[in-house]
């Protein structure tokens, strides 16, 4: 009893100290929000409004003074056939890559959720492409697809499937295919992990119920697994689309937009015009074309995520 009495004041002051710190929700909210706000303002908002401002100016790398030129930059960009080709290429790359990413990601997700020995090492290996910096993996692919020293060509030649090198990055169609292949290779692991979460969130009971109900693999896939994980498939697809749509590293390193702009995309063309070519105004105009699609994608992602919660 005596112990309790002597303990009481100590406990009270300790509890009081903790409460004072934890109680100040308003203060904590600010502290926690500041890094995000700073990040968004400095790295997203300022560059975004700067791009809008530059789009209506004659700012170049050589002459950074700001002069209003109205829609002159837009007129010149639209008059350039390379812009339209970049726009088309961007959509072609995005749509084809997204479809392949979803299909392969789904297959991979199912492989990774299956029960087999050494699952963790396979999961680890599969995730490697995603964890490798884009620039590094693109350089590796540059070598794999090299016009003279490509190991892929060497294997195909040795097996006897081709007589001459393929020149993966030297022919328009093959170059486009190569860029798409690298995008798919890079983004499938991410999509697979997202969809894996979806598959793992399906209760075992449901899968077993469908087995009892006589559903085979395909019917289970299309009537149970895919509908139940659809929101996460959508999220994976949209992430795939955004990363492909906005990427310039793969294109820039592999082909630099070539041959003859056949793999030019908005991001690489904006960079070529705005930074390499020094015409910052035109570069900004081209980059602004990424905005509407990204906005649409963000809205769709948020909707899909909300749908996850309503099941």
């Amino acid at each position, binding site marked *: 009893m005596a112990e309790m009495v002597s303990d009481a004041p100590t406990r009270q002051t300790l509890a009081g100290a903790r409460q004072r710190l934890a109680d100040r929700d308003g203060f904590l909210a600010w502290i926690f929000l500041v890094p995000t706000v700073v990040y968004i303002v400095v790295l997203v908002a300022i560059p975004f409004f700067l791009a809008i401002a530059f789009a209506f100016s004659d700012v170049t790398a050589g002459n950074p003074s700001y002069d209003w030129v109205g829609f002159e930059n837009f007129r010149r960009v639209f008059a350039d056939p390379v812009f339209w080709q970049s726009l088309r290429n961007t959509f072609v790359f995005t749509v084809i890559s997204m479809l392949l990413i979803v299909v392969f990601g789904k297959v991979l997700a199912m492989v990774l959720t299956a029960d087999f020995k050494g699952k963790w090492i396979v999961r680890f290996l599969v995730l490697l492409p995603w964890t490798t910096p884009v620039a590094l993996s693109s350089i590796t692919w540059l070598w794999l697809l090299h016009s003279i020293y490509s190991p892929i060509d060497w294997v195909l030649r040795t097996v006897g499937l081709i007589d001459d090198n393929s020149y993966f990055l030297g022919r328009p169609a093959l170059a486009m295919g190569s860029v798409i292949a690298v995008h798919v290779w890079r983004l499938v692991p991410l999509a697979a992990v997202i969809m894996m979460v979806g598959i793992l969130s399906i209760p075992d*009971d449901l899968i*077993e119920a469908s087995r009892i109900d006589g559903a085979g693999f395909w019917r289970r896939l299309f009537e149970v697994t895919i509908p139940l994980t659809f929101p996460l498939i959508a999220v994976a697809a949209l992430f795939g689309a955004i990363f492909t749509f906005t990427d310039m590293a793969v294109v820039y390193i592999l082909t630099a937009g070539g041959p003859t702009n056949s793999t030019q995309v908005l991001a690489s063309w904006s960079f070529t015009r705005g930074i390499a070519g020094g015409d910052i105004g035109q570069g900004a105009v081209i980059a602004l074309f990424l905005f509407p699609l990204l906005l649409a994608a963000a809205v769709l992602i948020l909707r899909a995520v909300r749908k996850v919660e309503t*099941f």
Partner: protein
Amino acid sequence: MSVTVEVANLIKQFDGGHVRAIDDVNLAIEEGEYLVLLGPSGCGKTTLLRTIAGLEQPTSGEVLIAGSVVNGLPPRVRKVAMVFQSYALYPHKTVFGNIVFPLKPEKLAKDERESKARWAAELLGIDQLLDRKPRQLSGGERQRVALARALVRAPHVFLLDEPLSNLDAKLRASARDELKRFQQRVGTTTVYVTHDQAEAMGLGDRIAVMDKGKLRQLGHPVEIYDDPADTFVATFIGSPPMNLVERDGTLVGFRPEHLLPSAHVTGESVEVSFHVDRIEYLSGDRHVYGTVSGIGEDTRVIARLPATVTDAVTPGESHPFGVSVDKLRFFGVESGTRAEPIRMEAKHG
């Protein structure tokens, strides 16, 4: 249509053989029978059900449905239907979509499928809910949808895995009654898993009591209650459980309702002195806790006095109680299984 279900020398091991979820079980379920698998959680009853369903493959032994071995066959060809504890309704499908789903692998015309689904829904009184999604249904309605989905394919065997455990207590009693009447109407062989002895007693034509993967006793509810095969069954069934008193290397067992004030015990009986500690009033009965001496070693036991026994019983005092000799059951102390009756000093009342 109803068929027999049999398991023979069934063993199921998990974790590379360290755990025997089912340990050499033999069980024959008759045509149209309502068999309840009863046991504490982890006793292997659900694993046994899943093995019959084909969701688990036995380590050894055989599962026979309608006389033929179905080992290795997938669930869909076994013609079994299962109701899961969670009901496992497809959340993205409507009630109708859920019920019609098992019919799709069968080569049926679309309107035939639909009329069958409607028939099943009407049978369970959920035909007004067909357009709803599972999340818009109450627990009881979900259970009926799960039953309709199980029923629609006219399976040979119903497998029910604790289908009432997600319902609140009030609903459970009426759902139990409904289940029993429903099974009697369709007459399908049913295996029902539960850990609730009241459900087992109320529903089962026969009860299979399991513990640690072993089948402890198979029998009619009355048999299980009155003549438990071992001390596990004796103490698992009954609430409060059977009292066990040790005497000369044998356990003497008697149900709480058979330990009564001497005046109420008729026929040949054993006289005891019952020192009462505490009394609980439960739905008209008196549960009397105390120490009994005179049967064997002094042991804490429980007596259940029905409302018709109004004798004064005072905590802190000893009272003359008795147990009819024919209500005594005997078990080996070591083995726990039934033992030869031992002679008791009996009084003829």
